[in-house]
């Protein structure tokens, strides 16, 4: 049976670490989207102007939410989990206490997901500072960030349990994350891409995140967004199962 107490105990450790590193974490979370916004929103925006009726920098500010979520979730899931498992033996220590692998994985991923949900709002807030119009729908963005962050954190945990060494992450980043990042509709609509690439975007969780964020922020959520939500939820369930399976194989011999 899955219990809440161990999950909270693992969060307690994350909280202790966060208290130590919140300044650098927050600095990175705020600065990166600002750079994207300035570079793309203004640099590019002055050429592009408007896109599908949106001001280009509003388009980018909403799109970069997904980028932030991707980085926090996937990088945290891959690197933190790998380092804690292999170098620090943190999980070995924890699993000697009344904690199961699935509780451990759930706790680690959900913490990252909360972080992704919170810091994922940073680009949007920076966007507001640069003229994006506030809307009630923005209140949904942390939740969209959480769900997407969960998918990528679990993906990262899964990957961390199958790579032979930390260098192998290069393949994952270049071969999987970068393409996902490019064909998610962050900087330009996927409809601009060749048909097969646009089709591939349909299985990219990040694309569904971008669609949901824009739907929420621009107040045009519709029935098709249930589809996006469904894809993200299905990905989360699948990734959870994969992450728990492989982590158990690595931690329990």
């Amino acid at each position, binding site marked *: 049976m899955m219990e809440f107490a161990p999950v*909270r*105990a693992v969060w*307690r450790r994350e909280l202790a670490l966060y208290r130590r590193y919140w300044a650098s974490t927050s600095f990175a979370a705020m600065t990166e989207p600002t750079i994207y916004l300035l570079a793309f929103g203004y640099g590019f925006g002055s050429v592009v102007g408007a896109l599908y009726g949106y001001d280009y920098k509003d388009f980018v500010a909403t799109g970069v939410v997904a980028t932030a979520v991707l980085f926090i979730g996937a990088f945290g899931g891959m690197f933190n989990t790998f380092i804690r498992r292999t170098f*620090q*033996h943190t999980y070995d*220590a924890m699993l*000697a206490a*009344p904690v199961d692998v699935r509780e451990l994985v759930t706790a680690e991923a959900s913490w990252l997901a909360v972080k992704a949900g919170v810091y994922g709002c940073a680009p949007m807030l920076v966007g507001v500072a640069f003229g994006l119009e506030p809307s009630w729908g923005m209140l949904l963005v942390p939740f969209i960030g959480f769900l997407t962050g969960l998918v990528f954190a679990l993906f990262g945990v899964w990957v961390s349990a199958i790579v032979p060494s930390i260098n192998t992450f290069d393949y994952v980043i270049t071969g999987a994350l970068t393409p996902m990042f490019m064909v998610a509709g962050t900087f330009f609509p996927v409809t601009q891409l060749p048909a097969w690439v646009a089709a591939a975007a349909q299985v990219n969780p990040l694309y569904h995140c971008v669609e949901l964020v824009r739907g929420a922020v621009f107040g045009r959520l519709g029935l098709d967004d249930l589809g996006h939500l469904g894809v993200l939820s299905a990905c989360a369930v699948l990734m959870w199962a994969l992450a728990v399976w492989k982590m158990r194989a690595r931690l329990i*011999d």
Partner: protein
Amino acid sequence: MPIVASMDAIVLHGVTKRYPDVTAVDGLDLEVPEGICLGLLGPNGAGKSTTMRLLTAQSLADEGEIRVMGLRLPQQSKQARALMGVVPQLDNLDEELTARENLEVFAHLYRVPRQERRAAVDRALALAQLTDRAATRTVNLSGGMRRRLLIARGLVHQPRLVLLDEPTVGLDPQVRQELWSLIVRLREEGVTTLMSTHYIEEAERLADDCALMSHGRIVARGSPEELVKEHAGAEVAEHYASQERQAEIAALAAEAGVPTRRTGPSISLLKSEQLPRSLEEALGPPNVRRPATLEDVFVVLTGEAVE
């Protein structure tokens, strides 16, 4: 099947754990009665740490039956882990966290109730003698302090059963003494302790009972005195001799059924008080006569060669 109230804190029956290259635990039978300190002695690679991991279900046995505090493993391992404190052989403290934070995290993991948590952490800090270093990050603690913290972490929830895997390795004599008194205190409080160690003296002083492990199974079991009496007798005769002569003596002794062990420049004949007349005459008087020790038993029973 109803759980029978047992007087054994730990029961292992015919437990086998195979790794691709080696059978780490090979048909192990071991019972640890409640309230005792059992010293698990064995050379490197004997399977001590693997046994400990089996008891927390971090390793799953290929065969055999394991019970901890009456709970069946691995099915009820989570309940069992809640009742146990574990001090691993390899330091896995959280280096980024302070001494206090390390203990707090484990107080949470072990589900110490909220009202008692602060007191539990303070008590563990005192136990580790780190009260005034509570705010020091673990990475900045000395090796001995880390070891103490590691032990205190396994005791933060006042478990009834403690697994100590080589608790005093790499510690200076003073700190080792302190840890010994700590273990003695645990036993006085009725805590069951399973302690693996390489230090014979440690086992002699602390353990009510010793189990000698070799190649994944127990080869001898008893109190230190019983083990010495049974396997090494009362007295040991040491003969200083060249390597060739040592080999000759060893052969003669083996013929007479007398156990021997190499002791550097000399060869030791155990149970020398039972030496046959003829052998005694063939060897001449020994250079040294000394009482038999647990170390003699250890070496004779677990083999001299390190594999």
